[in-house]
């Protein structure tokens, strides 16, 4: 054994930041990559159509259990629809909605935060009053009523999800922009004659993206819980479409004879929120060492 070999430990050809991450973070990242894959390819990899009804094999349990069938290794629901296919499509719906809701909310909040910081005075007052207003509303309950009365429209549902949590982004952005604007680099670029939009988008935004990214990871699990809770209550995503919350709400009625119908989608939601929380915590400690706790 040569000396060199003893000094340099053998590494897998992985990026350094990944090999240094704790095991839990690696697992969480892996799971989220898997969920993103499902989000994109759910309809391609599903063994059956998610709404295909197989009445001969209703309420089949997953395979190791008594009475299961190899036609549906992960079991079927009360109408004989394949649980695995439904899980894939349900995950796709929940992930897509949460991603869309989080991103729209972030764009809205960040934009308003920039406007408040840039325009100042009346604009600032108005936007911050709106922020306070949004924060003081029982949004989940309002969403519940709005969905019940305005009906089953995807556009309204997405709008409600986008309005959930935008105020935090606005508050954070406004504060960050106000302090970033007075820093040397921003003053320098402005002194060189750059227009405000250029300074904000090309110089300040990249510099404040860290805390915003952390907020994104906090907001994502909250949004997924928001969607699944509403769908669980029978609002939000409704049959024939499915989401993880809708599956759980349906499965809840069959706890006595088919517990897996509720437990499998429930565990999926739990693992998604858990993974995002772990990733968010890790990201926070990486991006902002002063917050290390």
């Amino acid at each position: 054994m040569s000396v060199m070999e003893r000094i340099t430990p053998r590494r897998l050809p992985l990026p350094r930041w990944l090999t240094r991450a704790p095991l839990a973070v690696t697992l969480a990242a892996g799971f989220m990559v898997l969920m993103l894959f499902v989000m994109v390819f759910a309809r391609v990899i599903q063994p059956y159509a998610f709404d295909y009804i197989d009445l001969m094999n209703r309420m089949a349990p997953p395979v190791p259990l008594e009475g299961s069938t190899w036609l549906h290794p992960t079991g079927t629901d009360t109408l004989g629809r394949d649980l695995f296919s439904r899980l894939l499509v349900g995950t796709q719906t929940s992930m897509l909605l949460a991603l869309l809701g989080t991103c729209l909310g972030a764009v809205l909040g960040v934009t308003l935060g920039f406007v408040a910081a840039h325009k100042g005075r009346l604009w600032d007052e108005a936007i911050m009053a709106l922020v306070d207003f949004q924060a003081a509303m029982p949004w989940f309950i309002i969403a519940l009523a709005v969905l019940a009365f305005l009906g089953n429209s995807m556009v309204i549902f997405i709008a409600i999800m986008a309005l959930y949590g935008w105020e935090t982004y606005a508050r954070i952005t406004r504060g960050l922009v106000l302090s970033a604007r007075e820093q040397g680099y921003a003053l320098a670029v402005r002194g060189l004659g750059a227009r405000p939009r250029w300074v904000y988008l090309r110089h300040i935004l990249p510099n404040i993206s860290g805390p915003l990214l952390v907020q994104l990871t906090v907001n994502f699990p909250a949004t997924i819980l928001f969607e699944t809770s509403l769908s669980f209550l029978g609002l939000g995503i409704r049959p024939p479409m499915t989401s993880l919350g809708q599956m759980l709400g349906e499965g809840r009625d069959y706890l006595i004879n088919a517990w897996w119908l509720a437990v499998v989608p429930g565990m999926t939601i739990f693992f998604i929120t858990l993974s995002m929380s772990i990733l968010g915590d890790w990201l926070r400690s990486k991006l902002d060492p002063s917050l290390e706790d």
Partner: protein
Amino acid sequence: MRWTLIKTIRAALTLLLVVSFVFFVLRLSGDPTYMLLPDDIDEATRDFYRSKWGLDAPLFEQYRSYLVALLHGDFGISFRNNLDAFDLVWDRVPKTALLMGTSLLIALAMGIPLGIIAALYRDSWLDRGVMTVSVFGFSMPNFFLGILLILVFSLNLRVLPSSGSDTWWHLIMPAATLGISYAAQFARYTRSSMIDVLSKPYMRTARSKGAAPARRVNLHALPNAAIPVVTILGFKVGEMLGGAVVVETVFAWPGIGRLLTSAVATRDLAVVQCIMILLAITMIAANTLTDLLYGWLDPRVRVGAKAGAR
């Protein structure tokens, strides 16, 4: 004093906004006579009900009379069973208050001591254990936790009832479901707040004066660490109301939340409106009280407000 006044005016304004928002969204959702009366009814009967419920007036006129009625404490009549909407809702308040109160007690009694212990033994196995459990706790959706508890304790072990509110036994699972995720959150907030305080110069001063460890923690660290935790507590009440709706539905707990889900399903406008306004009042009151309490605990906030800073 001026600061208190500003806060109160702001709260009243927010309430007015919520009340208006509720009115317009629910009114714009369509003519209630189409939801409540059979489709094949003749137009004259429909008109009779429209004028009976005051739906034939111009929208602004409806809005004005709605506000006046609210000021008189009149929340309208339930379309479903012709009872006063407010009475219907008020009957359910004790049940929800009991559930929320117990959950909050569980959350505080578990979360705060755990957070303090984790902060005092920072980076030990104890700290890591508490933090791991806490991540699991707040990642768990409350409706799923409720279902798991029913599966284990009602269906398998058969030791606790899965629905209703007849005995104290019925309270255990709903309160635990709602309380646990907040216990996890409070543990985290308490821990980071304590860690922050423990590194402050005045803690070093206290140690160099020779104050005993227990005295340093109880008299120097805890009151200061309590400030951010109190703030968060107030804001969590609103979130908890939303959680209560879900948990009450899972456990068939006859509170406001369950009334809301059934009123929403039957499109009982007056009841939904009444619940939303009462919940908004609760939430705004909680937030305002928190603000005031915060100012009282931490005089710097009041001074800052006077100086004109936000």
